[in-house]
């Protein structure tokens, strides 16, 4: 049973990290190679705010503040990336690749110089365990799980039940059609980058409360997210969620049976396998 809990924890992490990247790619057909570092900045927001505020208020409040601050700050950073990189270099995918890759190194170096290359961790905000059906469930993990569900619910409500969310979906499906309805592409791009980047930061705060926070934590997560998005079907958020659970299961099983170090290789092979039978991914648009 413990394995089920581990699968759920890992999968929800994959979802929370990958969904912002999938959103940005689906709507704008561009990839932010600094998405992993935005996630990392979320982790450091939590760590910094803990240092700053601990003792002055309950840890739970600090945790909530970290979520809000990280989403706001990193979301704004996303807007700056949109204005300074994606907009200026539009239709030059290679330049965008170089520029955002450059940004990801810059952010890593800034954190290494300012804080240090060593991993950091924050004390559990919600310590303790719950024992349930033979499973040991750290309360902190349950909280992270709960917040991830809330985060996904919020994204779902935004996309499915607001006019702006509907415009975002329409733009992802047909840019020309969207422009002809009066939807401003700049506005949609800024909205999408804000939301996508804020999601990365929220994921970083949540995972920063249970994992080691390091300047390099974004790198590996990013490659895993690429595999998830490609297998899920480019542009499909529901596909990304399905693929996140698929890899959550596979990676957890491999770790449990002592083959964790082969997981990236196996994942890549599964990606190739899926692509050879379903070139547009599990739930990708076939058009």
């Amino acid at each position: 049973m413990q394995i089920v809990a581990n699968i759920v924890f890992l999968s929800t992490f994959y979802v929370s990290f990958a969904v912002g990247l999938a959103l940005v790619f689906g709507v704008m057909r561009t990839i932010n190679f600094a998405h992993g570092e935005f996630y990392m900045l979320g982790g450091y927001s939590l760590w910094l705010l803990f240092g700053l505020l601990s003792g002055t208020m309950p840890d739970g409040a600090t945790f909530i503040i970290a979520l809000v601050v990280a989403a706001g700050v990193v979301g704004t950073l996303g807007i700056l990336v949109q204005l300074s990189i994606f907009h200026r270099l539009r239709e030059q995918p290679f330049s965008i690749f170089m520029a955002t890759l450059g940004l990801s190194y810059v952010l890593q170096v800034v954190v290494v110089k300012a804080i240090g290359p060593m991993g950091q961790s924050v004390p559990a905000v919600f310590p303790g365990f719950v024992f349930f059906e033979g499973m040991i469930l750290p309360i902190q993990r349950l909280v992270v799980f709960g917040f991830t569900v809330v985060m996904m619910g919020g994204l779902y409500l935004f996309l499915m039940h607001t006019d702006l969310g509907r415009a975002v979906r329409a733009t992802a499906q047909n840019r020309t059609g969207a422009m002809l309805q009066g939807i401003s592409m700049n506005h949609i791009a800024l909205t999408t980058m804000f939301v996508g980047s804020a999601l990365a930061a929220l994921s970083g705060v949540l995972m920063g409360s249970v994992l080691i926070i390091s300047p390099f934590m974004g790198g590996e997560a990013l490659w895993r997210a690429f595999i998830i998005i490609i297998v899920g079907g480019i542009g499909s958020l529901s596909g990304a969620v399905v693929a996140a659970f698929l890899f959550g299961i596979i990676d957890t099983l491999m770790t449990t049976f002592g083959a964790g170090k082969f997981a990236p290789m196996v994942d890549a092979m599964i990606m190739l396998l899926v692509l050879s039978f379903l070139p547009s991914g599990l739930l990708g648009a076939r058009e």
Partner: protein
Amino acid sequence: MMLETRDLTVKYDLISALSEVSISAEERTITTIVGSNGAGKTTLLKTISGLIRPASGEIRFLGDRIDTASPSAIVRMGISQVPEGRELFPRISVYDNLMVGAYLRRDKKAIRRDLEQIYQHFPILKDRRRQLARNLSGGEQQMLAFGRALMSDPKLLLLDEPSIGLAPVIEQKIMETISVLAMEHNVGVVLVEQNAALALSVASHGYVLEQGSLVLQGPANELIKDDNVRAAYLGL
């Protein structure tokens, strides 16, 4: 004059797709632009909607220059287009497609009223409002594109070959609706067509476009009798 282009020249790289095209369209009238494949019809409508920038010339709408305005500003001013190929949103519902058409509007009540009106014109859209747009037939998709354009409550409607690929019955239905709209709702219509017979039968004024240049213009009932038009476009 509602819409006016003056000496409009549009280029793709160095090749001119439109050369010094001057047309005008009035409210409550259907103005048609007929021309064969590659004449520049779509280019003209895209330029009016702000998707392409002209190399020279001007476009005025209700007196204001719009040739440098953004597509969004142009929709806001009251110009809406049913584009070539329809450009629907395939994986959202019929209802959502229609509501995206009302994206710039905030008058909730009037939006509901217009939606009901479109459902009355095209009951099939109401029956299928929960289906994905890509699951509609060609004719239904054309109705949806039409309904979506109306949801912005336009003053001027640009139609790019609305009859293409449709069965004659539906073709007729679409043309009737266009006439009704122009008359009842004070909407100006610019109708672009390869099917000159059909277009000239509903329009009051017409232009003939050949390889990017206007070669003929006049009242539709005269153009339909013109020997050159009959020979070139009506196959007579």
